[in-house]
């Protein structure tokens, strides 16, 4: 989860910048990218619509972008590589961004700081299949881990998954859009307790429910 934490930290800085009365120009994604990128190449933000996004996904995206206008919600940008990783292993890339448009994970995560909530709009493509015609349980688990992890990382900093418990209520058809809603329930010391639901766009179908426990890493200790 460290990578998502690195991404979360960058986002956090951007969020704080905005809250401290940054000018509207600071919200410009190009400027934000330049701030963090020391290279000439500007990394692509994958959390933006592309031609593979279905109508449902685009509509939801627009709805949430409207919610961002008053500052209560923030869209989290999403990059394939973090600077940290590039130095270590050039081939490594964020697991969920390794597919061509529309084939794998198409998603965008929004964060609400007051409610300590993340919402992920997720469209799973044909390369994420399990039982023919449906999303692989592992792909769903990956997105739940990513969404819940981000919900813990933004307030908590560098966190790692300690436990994930997922109840699958209904199989998710391939290429459909779901909304993953994650909530920070409580913090006990370095333990972050979160819960999460996966629902259809109209919220009528509950596909999965999950709980997660994330641990804030002790900066004094090494990873292993």
């Amino acid at each position, binding site marked *: 989860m460290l990578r998502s934490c690195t991404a979360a930290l960058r986002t956090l800085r951007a969020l704080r910048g905005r809250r401290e009365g940054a000018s509207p120009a600071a919200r410009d994604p190009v400027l934000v990218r330049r701030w963090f990128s020391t290279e000439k190449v500007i990394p692509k933000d994958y959390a933006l619509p592309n031609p593979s996004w279905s109508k449902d996904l685009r509509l939801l995206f627009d709805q949430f972008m409207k919610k961002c206008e008053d500052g209560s919600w923030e869209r989290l940008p999403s990059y394939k590589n973090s600077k940290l990783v590039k130095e270590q292993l050039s081939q490594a890339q964020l697991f969920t961004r390794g597919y061509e448009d529309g084939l794998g994970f198409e998603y965008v995560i929004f964060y609400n700081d007051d409610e300590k909530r993340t919402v992920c709009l997720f469209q799973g493509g044909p*390369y994420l299949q399990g039982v023919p*015609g449906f999303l692989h349980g592992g792909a769903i688990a990956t997105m739940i881990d990513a969404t819940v992890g981000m919900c813990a990382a933004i307030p908590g900093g560098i966190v790692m998954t300690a436990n994930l418990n997922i109840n699958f209520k209904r199989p998710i058809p391939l290429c459909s859009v779901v909304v993953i809603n994650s909530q920070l329930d409580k913090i006990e010391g370095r333990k972050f307790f979160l819960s999460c639901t996966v629902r259809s766009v109209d919220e009528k179908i509950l596909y999965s429910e999950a709980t997660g426990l994330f641990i804030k890493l002790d900066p004094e200790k090494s990873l292993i």
Partner: protein
Amino acid sequence: MMRRGLQVAARLSHHGALPGGPYILPTFSPASAFGSSMDSMVSRFCQEKTDLKNYALPNASWCPDMLNLYHKFLEKTKADGWIRLPSFKSNRNHIQELKLPLVLTVSSDKSDCHIFTRCTETEGQSYEYVIFFHPSKKKSVCLFQPGPYLEGPPGFAHGGSLAAMIDETVSKTAYLAGEGLFTLNLNIRFKNLIRMGSLAVLNVGVEKVEDQKLYIPCVAQSTDQQTIYTKASGTFLQLQLEEDSSQYYTLCLQESLLPTALPTWDTLQSSGGCPGSNR
């Protein structure tokens, strides 16, 4: 072989597999899950006479640990009752001429679907794994080597990729050992990180079968068994597949019992977007 047609069956118990709506599912006859029926399931799964590419074979990216254990288990397939499971690009390839007896239509016209864990052609890039299954002991061993595409914390595998590998191994075991089809629950406790490019050994075994559900724990550890990476458990719903001469899935549930929580079926039907139902 006994033909298993769709029958109006006893409802699943309220704490059964799919809460939120009453489902009438085919009667599951436990007797058919064992004995010679399992042998035929396994041989159908393995598709021995096929041109399909088998991804669960050694390649240049496999680390020495993985190659060693692979050969050790290959030896066991000769006399100890282990079977090396092939791994094709799509689960559809593993269940040819079978269909799901469910109400859900699927977008079955997509011929380019890949199973999640076989997403790239480049060796060593994402999931490198092979599963050995023991039919009579109802257990499996998966040798898993995560590649750079699966990175989470720098240099280590992403928790999600491990969750996927656990789900995949437990799924295949559930299917072959007891016709488990859908994951109902996955509970994973992450203990230690897996270094990218190193081997993780997943040990999986059916603990019990109750109320049309299979309970399957899974432990992932290092080659020398000194480090435990995760302890997990999966619960699976048993559902029998039916013989099907056509390629596509068909609908076969009584309309009056359609739970309102499945509008996708209606939506797809009315929009004409479900090729499966018309064939």
